[in-house]
């Protein structure tokens, strides 16, 4: 389990670096944020692989993808409102704390975008100041079958964009291992 311990540490360090980069002079650096996101994704993939290999819980993880609180609208399905998304995630947030090594149910909770929706509910942004490019996507990225990697990029870049636009928003939850 050394690999998964190392993976978890790498993820936590990445998050710490991303968080502190918000207060860096000169603004959030896109290149650095992207690299940190990629490292987190790598580490998380490896962590998951190690977990599922160790505990043969592949079936459990699949069940949990259906419990997604964030859903990409497809075929005309309505978006969940931000408040319900936030509510859904708040319930799951205790599972997302690192160090909670036993809970499998958290395995796919991290596929709910912890950064994006949380920040959407807190964000107040006038239309005048927001360019279309910078409006964080209010949709979760995860579709069935799409690898979770996009979600991490999305959540971090939402985080990045928030840094560019408004005052820092405190980190709510941590992308973490189960």
């Amino acid at each position, binding site marked *: 389990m050394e690999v998964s311990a190392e*993976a978890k540490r*790498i993820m936590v360090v990445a998050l710490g670096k991303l968080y502190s980069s918000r207060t860096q002079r*000169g*603004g959030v650096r896109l*290149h650095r944020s992207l690299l940190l996101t990629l*490292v987190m994704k790598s580490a998380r993939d490896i962590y998951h692989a190690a977990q599922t290999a160790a505990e043969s819980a592949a079936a459990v993880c699949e069940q949990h993808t259906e419990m997604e609180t964030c859903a990409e609208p497809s075929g005309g399905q309505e978006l969940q409102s931000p408040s319900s998304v936030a509510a859904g995630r708040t319930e799951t947030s205790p599972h997302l704390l690192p160090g909670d090594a036993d809970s499998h149910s958290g395995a796919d909770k991290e596929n709910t975008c912890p950064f994006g929706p949380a920040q959407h509910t807190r964000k107040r942004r006038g239309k005048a100041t927001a360019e279309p490019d910078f409006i964080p996507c209010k949709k979760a990225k995860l579709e069935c079958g799409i690898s979770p990697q996009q979600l991490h*990029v999305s959540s971090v870049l939402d985080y990045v964009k928030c840094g560019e636009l408004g005052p820092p928003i405190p980190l709510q939850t941590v992308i973490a291992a189960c």
Partner: protein
Amino acid sequence: NRAVFFAGPGGGSSDVQWYFSQVKGAMDDDVAEADIISTVEFNHSGELLATGDKGGRVVIFQQEPESKNQAQCRGEYNVYSTFQSHEPEFDYLKSLEIEEKINKIRWLPQKNAAQFLLSTNDKTIKLWKISERDKRAEGYNLKEEDGRYRDPNSVTTLRVPVLRPMDLMVEASPRRVFANAHTYHINSISVNSDHETYLSADDLRINLWHLEITDRSFNIVDIKPANMEELTEVITAAEFHPNQCNTFVYSSSKGTIRLCDMRASALCDRHTKLFEEPEDPNNRSFFSEIISSISDVKFSHSGRYMMTRDYLSVKVWDLNMETRPVETYQVHEYLRSKLCSLYENDCIFDKFECCWNGNDSVVMTGSYNNFFRMFDRGYRQDMTFEASRENSKPQSVLKPRKVSTGGKRKKDEISVDSLDFNKKILHTAWHPLDNIIAVATINNLYIFENKMN
């Protein structure tokens, strides 16, 4: 005219040695953040050497003419001009401070008595004119010497003002300010061989400017995805081809280089060539993406090759072959097993630059512990030297250094764990016509030269 003088690379060959020449900057241990050197660049003749620092200042050194008495003693570099290029700014819309740190300096080829350079911070590029004034006009008819105007009625005779010599004054004045064209942080500027245009690159876009026109630029590369969540790579460096004014390259955080031809279309989103080496699966780690990110790309003077620097290596590419580099040089392979620590202390994000010597036979790049490395492409030799105060006696020979990687450490070798990762050489420059190199430690500029024994 300086004789073109390309001896061997030095170090390995017994004929040629590298010597300490000068060191610039404060030599005390307390480093002010503003004094951190952020860019180093020789001009096209090598007579001028510019540095930019984190405090937004540019310092230009000029080489003294060769002394006629000492045939092989090249002139010293002394301060020629110092000016504040950029100031900190505040973007009120985004609530962001814009750093004054000079990211890059690029010289324009000299057209007249004055010198011109482009300097850039994260958001704004400026064209500076550096000119000399060594004469003053005296004997005006309508003004006194102190500048007060004379009463016209008191003027009874007319005289022609004469030019009298004065102490040399070097003036730097901003001639153009190219602003508001970059949403992201500018990482590169490059002057075109047409001497009329230049490019500036940020994380996602490259713009083409005309040196005379500041109120608009053309966007020639845009890799920003429609949906930022789909972002997978950023632009890390860009450069114009040294003699084909329609060609430029840009490197990415994914380790690829794209060569673009501006004749193909107005927006060069589709590359003409894509240079990419498949990753060695044996080397795969958590940090593979970080260390494959290219931090610098430089064309050879000939224009036939280009060189890229990633975290652990320098690669030379033949522009005619896209599938893999023709040469790969390991800068500090012993760090591969330390990547996790380097990630935690942030060193893995360091952006090292690289440079060619005048005839493209040697490439050079920096490392940690104030080491810098030279790779001789012809002789297949590599050398490691250290820029340190201990080696700062005039004309002292640079001893080659070695990092011990195995169990046994030989005398004079340094072990990987003893390396000082706070002492990093990110910026190096090689005189375009001579064997003089400028190596920047955190806040000092070392000048070394080599000569035949």
